[in-house]
C-alpha cells in the first residue's frame, strides 16, 4: 500500500522563521493578540482601581467581614431554622434556599402544566384546543410583574384568619395563607425518606437490567411491580419497623394566627402561581413545536409495525420530539429561576430581597451585588450543565 503514496505528501512543510515584519502573518497575529489582551487587562485593572479609590475616598467599608456579623433582620419563611440573632451568612443561606425552593418546584410544575397545555393545543377537540390557544396568547402578552401583583392581590382579598374558608377538617384558606394538616416529623420519617431515595436508585438499576434482558430475548417485562415495591413498599416497611410513629398536627386558630400544620404563605403561593402559569405558556409552545416536528410518517410507520398508540408515543415520537424540546426548555428553566427575583415586589424573601437588605444595612453594595450575581450564576450554570448533559444523552445516535 505504502508504495502507492506519493512521497511528496509525506514531507514536512519547510519551517518558517518568525520575521519581525508586518508582512509575516504570525507576527501580525501576535501583535494583535498582545494589543487586545493588554487592552482588556487595562480596562479591568482601571475599573477595579477606580472603584477601590472611590470607596477609599468616600470611606465606604469593603470586604466580606460583615458575613459573620449578627443580621438582626426578620425573615418570614425559612427552610432551615433561623432567628434574627443569626449571622448575615445564615440569612443569605436562607435566601438562597428560598430561591431554590420556588425555582425547583416552579420548574417541575411549569413543565407538567406547560406540557398539558401544549398537547391540549394540538387536541382535535375544538373547545380544548381553543382554550389552550387563548391561554397561551393571553399569558405570554402580560408582563410577569403585573401577573405576580395580580395573584398577590387576589390572595390578599381572601378572608382573614377568623373567617377562614374551611373546606375540610384542618384545611384553612385565608389571607394568611393555606394551612394544611400534617404530622409531627420524627426520625422514622427521615429514615423512610432515605429508603425512598435508595429505592429510586435501585429502581434505576432494575430498569437497566430489565431492558438488557429484553434486548437479549425480545420479551418486554413490566417495571411497575418493581416500582411499587421499591418506591412505596420499602419506605413503608422501614417506617413500620421503626415503630410506625404518626401524630397528626392539625392547624388551629390560636391568638392572632393559626399554629401547627403546614403553611403555604400567600407570598410564596402568589410567586409560584405567577411563575408557573407564565412559564407554562412558553413551555406549551415549545412542546407543541417538538411534537409537530416529528413527521406524520413516523406515526404511520410505527403503527404499521403493530405498536399501539402509547408505545408509538413513548418509543418513537417522544424521543425525537425531545431533541427539539430540550434546548429551548433549558432557556425557560433559566428564565423561571431568574424571574423568581421579582419576589421582591410581593414580599417573598428570596436571595435578592435578603441580599438587598444586607447591602442596605452594611452599605456594601458591591459585595451584596456580587453575592446575588454569584448565586444566580451558580444556579443557572448548574441547570445548563444538567440540561446539556441530558440533551447529549437523548441525541439521536447517527451512524
Amino acid at each position, binding site marked *: 500500500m505504502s508504495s502507492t503514496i506519493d512521497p511528496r505528501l509525506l514531507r514536512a512543510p519547510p519551517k518558517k522563521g518568525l520575521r519581525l515584519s508586518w508582512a509575516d502573518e504570525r507576527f501580525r497575529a501576535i501583535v494583535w493578540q498582545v494589543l487586545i489582551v493588554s487592552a482588556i487587562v487595562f480596562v479591568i485593572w482601571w475599573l477595579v482601581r477606580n472603584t477601590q479609590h472611590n470607596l477609599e475616598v468616600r470611606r465606604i467599608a469593603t470586604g466580606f467581614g460583615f458575613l459573620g456579623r449578627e443580621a438582626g433582620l426578620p425573615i418570614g419563611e425559612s427552610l432551615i431554622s433561623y432567628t434574627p440573632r443569626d449571622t448575615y451568612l445564615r440569612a443569605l443561606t436562607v435566601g438562597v434556599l428560598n430561591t431554590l425552593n420556588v425555582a425547583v418546584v416552579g420548574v417541575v410544575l411549569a413543565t407538567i402544566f406547560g406540557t398539558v397545555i401544549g398537547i391540549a393545543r394540538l387536541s382535535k377537540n375544538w373547545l380544548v384546543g381553543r382554550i389552550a390557544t387563548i391561554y397561551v396568547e393571553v399569558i405570554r402578552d402580560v408582563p410577569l410583574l403585573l401577573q405576580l401583583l395580580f395573584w398577590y392581590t387576589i390572595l390578599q382579598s381572601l378572608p382573614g384568619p377568623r373567617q377562614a374558608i374551611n373546606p375540610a377538617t384542618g384545611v384553612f384558606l385565608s389571607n394568611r395563607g393555606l394551612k394544611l394538616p400534617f404530622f409531627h416529623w420524627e426520625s422514622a420519617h427521615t429514615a423512610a425518606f432515605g429508603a425512598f431515595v435508595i429505592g429510586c436508585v435501585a429502581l434505576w438499576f432494575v430498569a437497566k437490567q430489565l431492558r438488557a434482558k429484553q434486548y437479549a430475548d425480545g420479551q418486554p417485562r413490566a417495571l411497575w411491580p418493581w416500582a411499587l415495591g421499591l418506591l412505596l413498599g420499602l419506605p413503608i416497611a422501614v417506617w413500620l419497623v421503626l415503630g410506625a410513629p404518626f401524630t397528626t398536627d392539625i392547624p388551629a386558630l390560636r391568638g*392572632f394566627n393559626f399554629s401547627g400544620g403546614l403553611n403555604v404563605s400567600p407570598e410564596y403561593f402568589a410567586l409560584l402561581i405567577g411563575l408557573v402559569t407564565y412559564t407554562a405558556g412558553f413551555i406549551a409552545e415549545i412542546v407543541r413545536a417538538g411534537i409537530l416536528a416529528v413527521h406524520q410518517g413516523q406515526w404511520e410507520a410505527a403503527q404499521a409495525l403493530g405498536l399501539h398508540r402509547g408505545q408509538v408515543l413513548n418509543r418513537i415520537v417522544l424521543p425525537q420530539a425531545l431533541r427539539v424540546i430540550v434546548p429551548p426548555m433549558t432557556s425557560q428553566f433559566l428564565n423561571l429561576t431568574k424571574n423568581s427575583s421579582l419576589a421582591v*415586589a410581593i414580599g417573598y424573601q428570596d436571595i435578592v430581597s435578603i441580599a438587598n437588605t444586607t447591602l*442596605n444595612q452594611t452599605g456594601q453594595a458591591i459585595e451584596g451585588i456580587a453575592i446575588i450575581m454569584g448565586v444566580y450564576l451558580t444556579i443557572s450554570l448548574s441547570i445548563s450543565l444538567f440540561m446539556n448533559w441530558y440533551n447529549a444523552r437523548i441525541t439521536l445516535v447517527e451512524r
Partner: protein
Amino acid sequence: MPLRHLSKAVGAAVLLGGLALSAPVQAQTPTSMLDTIRSRGNLICGVNTGLAGFAQPDSQGVWRGFDVDYCRAIAAAILGDGTKVRYVPLTAQSRFTALQSGEVDVLVRNTTWTLSRDTSLGFDFAGITFYDGQGFMVKASLGLTSARELNGATICVQPGTTTEQNLTDWARSNRIEFRPVVIERIEEVVGAYTSNRCDAYTTDVSGLAATRAVQPRPADHVILPDVISKEPLGPLVRHGDQRFADIVRWTHFALLGAEEFGLTAANVDQAAASDPRPEVQRMLGKNGELGQMLGLQPNWVVSVLKTTGNYGEVFARNLTPIGIQRGPNALWTTPGGLQYSPPFR
C-alpha cells in the same frame, strides 16, 4: 489563533498590565459640591417615594412635604431660588446607594441617624430635623391597648431600615414572637396591612400618622402608645465635602433660629430692614460676614425664609394637618422641646 501564540500574548499583556499597575494613579481633585450645584443650576434631592406630610407629589405633580421643604430651603440658601430642585424619589433600599454613587446631592428621606451610617456607609448627618420613634399601628377592631399584646401576630415591615432591626431587638427583649411580612415598596406594605395580611404595621410614629391620615376611615386604625426606639431623622450628605455639609446643617439651624426670633416668610423683609436685634442683623446678612463664611450670599437666610418660612411654619404646613404634634420637636424654649440652634455668631 494558535494556542502557543496566545500564551505569548498573555505573557506580554501581563507585563504591560504590571507596568500600568506600578504607574501612579492620577489623584482625583474632588470638585466642591457647591460649585457643582451652582454650575448645574439645581439641587438634586433624594426624597421618599410618597409619604404624606414628608414627601409626596400633589395633584398637580408638585412635590410637597416636610422633607421637600428642606430640599427647597437648601436650594434657596445656595441658589437663591427654592424652585431649583430636582426630586429623586428613592425607596428605603435604594437611598444609600443613590447618595454614595452621587446620583443625589443630599438625602432628605426620613433617615435615622445611626453610628454605622455615619461611619461605614461614608455619610455625614447634618442635624436632626425631626425627633421620631418607632411605633405600631393596628386595626381598632382588635381592641389592643399595648404593643406587648402582639405576641404571635403577623407584622408588616419595610426592609433595609432601622425599623426592621428595632423590631427584632424589641421582640427579643420582650420575648414576643411575631411573623414578619417584609415588602419593600411603601404602597405595597401598607396595602398588605390594610388588606389584613398583617395584624400590625410598624414604622416611625410620624410615618404611621401619615399612613393613618390617608386611610379612607382613619378612625379604624389605632397607633399604639408604645414607642420602641429613638429615631432622630435628618438630612445627610456624602462624607468628604465639609463645606456642603455645613450649608445643609446651618440651613436647618437658620429655620430653627428664625422661629426662635419670630422671623417668618411674611415679616422677614421688614425684619431685615428694621429689626434692631444684633443676632437677627447677623443672621439676615445686615451685619458681619456669616453668609460669606459658608460660601453663600449675605442674604441667604432671607431667601430661605421667603421660600419655606421658619421651622414652625414648615411643621404647621406639612405635619400638623396629618395629626402630628410638635412634642419633642418644639423649640427648646418650650418645656419638652428638643429643637435647638447654636448661635449665629
